[in-house]
């Protein structure tokens, strides 16, 4: 691009305004990360707001004493399993709903986005505690699928809507069955859509808090629930709390940046169809 000789007043205004936006979005996150490298004494000292000696003691506390490695494993396992199962159920369903125009069935699945989660938790808790499943991974994974399955169906329906049917028909001309055409033609072409749906489902499951708060046990706690170990009734271990928060949210933010294109297309899926 050719270098501009002069900036118009609008360009200057835009640069300043966007700088303000960027700083106000990023600064709080940097502040959290900075606090996670401070001793609690330094956090209480406003003179050490920027000039402090970074320490790792909060992270050793989080990873060694607070058993966070186990919680990281729990979060990974639940998010991974919920995502894979949602894709297995959601991909064919989204395909059918798109190809056969099953709008009413789709609406039922999308209802899940509207219903307040608490109203599902009471019946689930009743049923699953009778089955002695509360506190185990099965029920956690099932509850997270409640969030990820509708997401998968919603994103992929839009994706399948955009794939021309002629491709499958030409496959059938070449001797494929309708299901064979779906498997060998549509599915490979849908890889970007499936990646988008999978990534979004993983992020939302990783970040989910309310279901794990009720349904997880001491050994199956996920990270968002485990954060609360650092909030006492009388006092808060700020250093540990910020280190724990960083451990929860930094990995998911980094992953999202690597696959930014997919995340954005998933978040805005269906937005422009009106």
């Amino acid at each position, binding site marked *: 691009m050719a270098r501009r000789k002069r900036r118009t007043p609008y360009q200057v205004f835009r640069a300043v*305004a*966007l700088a303000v*936006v*960027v700083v*106000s*979005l*990023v600064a*709080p*996150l940097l*502040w*959290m990360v900075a*606090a996670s490298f401070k001793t609690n004494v330094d956090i*209480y000292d406003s003179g050490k*707001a920027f000039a402090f000696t970074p320490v790792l003691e909060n992270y050793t506390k989080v990873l060694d004493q607070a058993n966070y490695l186990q919680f990281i494993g729990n979060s990974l396992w639940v998010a991974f399993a919920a995502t894979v199962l949602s894709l297995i159920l*959601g991909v064919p*369903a989204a395909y*059918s709903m798109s190809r*056969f125009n*099953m709008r009413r*069935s789709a609406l*039922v699945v999308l209802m*899940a986005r*509207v*219903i*307040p*989660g*608490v*109203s*599902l*938790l*009471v*019946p*689930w*808790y*009743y049923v699953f505690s*009778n089955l002695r499943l509360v506190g185990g991974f099965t029920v956690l994974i*099932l509850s997270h*699928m409640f969030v990820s399955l509708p997401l998968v169906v919603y994103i992929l329906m839009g994706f399948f809507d955009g794939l021309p049917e002629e491709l499958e*028909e030409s496959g*059938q*001309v070449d001797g*494929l069955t*309708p299901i064979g055409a*779906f498997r060998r033609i549509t599915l490979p072409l849908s890889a970007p859509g499936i990646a988008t749906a999978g990534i979004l489902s993983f992020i939302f499951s990783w*970040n989910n*808090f309310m279901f794990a708060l009720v349904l997880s046990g001491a050994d199956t706690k996920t990270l*968002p629930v485990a954060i609360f170990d650092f909030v006492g009734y009388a006092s808060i271990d700020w250093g540990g709390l*910020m280190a*724990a*928060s960083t451990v929860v*949210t930094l990995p*998911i933010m980094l992953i*999202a*940046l690597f696959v*930014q294109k997919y*995340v*954005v297309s998933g*978040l805005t899926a269906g*937005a422009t169809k*009106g």
Partner: protein
Amino acid sequence: MASLASPRQPGDLTGWTRWANTHRKWLFAAPAMTFVGALIIFPLAWTVYLSLTDAEGSVRAESEFIGFANYLEVLSDTDRFWPAVLRTVGFTGVALLFEIVIGMAVALLLWRPFRGERWVRVAILLPLVATPVAVGMMWRLIFDPNIGMANQILGWVGIGPQPWLAGQHSALPTTIFIDIWQWTPMVVLILLAGLTALSNEPDEAARVDGANAWQRFRHVTLPLLMPTVIVAILLRGIDALKTFDILYATKGRGGGSFHEVETLNVYAYGLSFDYNEYGISSTVLIIFFLIIIGSMWALTSRRKKGAL
């Protein structure tokens, strides 16, 4: 050779393959529909039933059918229920207003390409994917009345310390601020997708006709973008009504000791899992659900009539 030219139909097959291909519509959809039915429809029906009983205490305890008594009790409760309704509606309304206005402004700034665009997009994505509970904790430190950065910054410009989350009247506005910080980027992304999909021609035509930037936005871009704005309001509105994580992270159970951030969702959660008042809680949830459906319906039907 004519038979080879037409697509292969399920009728040409035999046995299981034929059955599967003929019924693929439902074969594909059934597992997901069954899952949704079992985990959503059935619990929802149960919630309706529970709202008509006096269920409380243990989930296994006996309960009696009491008709609409719970609804009468809840709807006449001016102590916890109606304040929670007001907070829910206020939280959502104020947060949505700011998110749409700021989100529109930022989306317009990002509309035309420029150098450094990538970095702005990275910054916009970060709050969106951050774990809400961690975001709540982060702001809890920043807004701490004694050691928080917020009061320190106010001190630099000569304003006295504020109680923020700790204040009985400032807690709710502070949580609204946190919601705006985290979710305005969502509105930016949606509106930007809408803007990018717009054709340039109407805008150019208006420019040729001598319309200034504001006139072009008000009379050309905004009307064309309105469907996307409605989608943003719908998606964000539903989630804002159901906000739970940041409220629980910043104020704990019951929305704080004076219930200062207790919205319907937080109230219903407390009734269910702190007090085991399943009947009353289910009633609150049904009313809450009706409020959500009602506002969605109002928004989409006004849009169909072309009023928006």
